[in-house]
């Protein structure tokens, strides 16, 4: 890392509307018990009709800043990831910045689904020395980007937003190292075209994820001299509970070391990592290394190691 970067707080926002498997069964023709068995998902949250990606992101940003006790005016940079923004440009970053009352701090979009929050955190870790406090927001409304006729995909996704504040001065954990990767040879495996709906070759994606994510984590931990068994918690993009179990098995660590909320939220794409982080941090103190990891469209993936201070 170019200089010290600290995690200060997490925040999240999840829309009130809950959609259970029975409701999706009626729409997709996929039986509710099959949805639960194959995905581990019991329900997911959908945004209200009037809510936008920026609305969700703003709510998560506010939550995060409130928890940190930092005013929006203290931000030097805003990074916003979303794979489901309503328009090509401007993206939600500028809108969220305006809602936060910012008029000149740079607000930059990362149009990256799934791994977007991790990539935002990785970039922020390298940029805090220049910008000071950096707020990373990930916001998604994937429920408007699914096709009920494609049940394999439609049953997975929910809406929500997460946020993370990084600082160069202090925090509850220090970002020790980051590793990001891209393999564009599988870019067609997971696609959301302009004006279209999400198309995913699920088997192809999970074959790649099951191989690439554990390798990224193993390499990062080895590089930093941290044993997988010493990691306090693995905070992951919540794509699929079975994938998390496979990664745990590959790393030879207990599955319960992997925080999961997929049963109650589904896959909220790039937002899921930070929603999970916020929920985990609500009930736990940082006592050991934390690994963040994500995988998704691109293919983009990576891992981030944070150590307690």
């Amino acid at each position, binding site marked *: 890392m170019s200089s010290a970067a600290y995690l200060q707080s997490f925040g999240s926002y999840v829309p009130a509307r809950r959609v259970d498997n029975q409701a999706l069964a009626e729409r997709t023709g996929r039986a509710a018990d099959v949805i639960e068995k*194959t995905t581990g998902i019991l329900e997911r949250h959908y945004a209200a009709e009037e809510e936008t990606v920026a609305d969700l992101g703003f709510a998560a940003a506010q939550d995060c800043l409130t928890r940190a006790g930092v005013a929006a005016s203290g931000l030097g940079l805003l990074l916003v990831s979303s794979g489901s923004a309503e328009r090509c440009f401007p993206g939600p970053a500028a809108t969220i910045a305006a809602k936060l009352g910012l008029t000149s701090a740079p607000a930059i979009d990362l149009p990256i689904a799934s791994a977007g929050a991790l990539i935002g955190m990785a970039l922020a870790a390298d940029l805090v020395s220049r910008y000071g406090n950096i707020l990373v927001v990930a916001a998604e409304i994937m429920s408007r980007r699914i096709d009920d006729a494609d049940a394999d995909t439609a049953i997975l996704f929910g809406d929500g937003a997460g946020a993370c504040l990084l600082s160069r001065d202090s925090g509850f954990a220090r970002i020790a190292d980051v590793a990001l990767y891209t*393999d564009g*040879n599988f870019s067609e495996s997971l696609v959301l075209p302009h004006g279209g709906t999400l198309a995913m*070759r*699920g*088997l*192809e994606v*999970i*074959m*790649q994820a*099951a*191989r*690439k994510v554990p390798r990224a984590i193993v390499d990062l931990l080895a590089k930093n001299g941290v044993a997988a068994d010493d990691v306090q918690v693995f905070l992951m993009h919540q794509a*699929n509970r*079975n994938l998390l179990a*496979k990664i745990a098995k590959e790393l030879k660590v207990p599955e319960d070391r992997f925080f999961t909320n997929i049963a109650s939220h589904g896959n909220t794409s790039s937002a899921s990592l930070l929603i999970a982080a916020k929920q985990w941090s609500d009930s736990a103190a940082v006592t050991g290394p934390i690994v963040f990891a994500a995988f998704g469209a691109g293919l983009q993936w990576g891992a981030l190691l944070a150590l307690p201070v």
Partner: protein
Amino acid sequence: MSKQPGILKVIHAVADVHQDPTEDESLFADGTLDSFTLPDLVTGLEQEFSVKIPDSDLVPERFDTRRKIEQYLDTLGN
């Protein structure tokens, strides 16, 4: 030498198989393999045949039937 006994051994190790699929029967269509068992199949094949399957070859079509699996393994030169 046929790799089918080893392939079947791996399939049995990773999936609930009530009746052995034929060499040309889709392992996905009949539910023998799914998104959860397919990565385990790949790992099992690597161990059973002492080969390394590169990321670039990790596409479901190569593993759809027992025959396709054997044809693919043959290309790895083992």
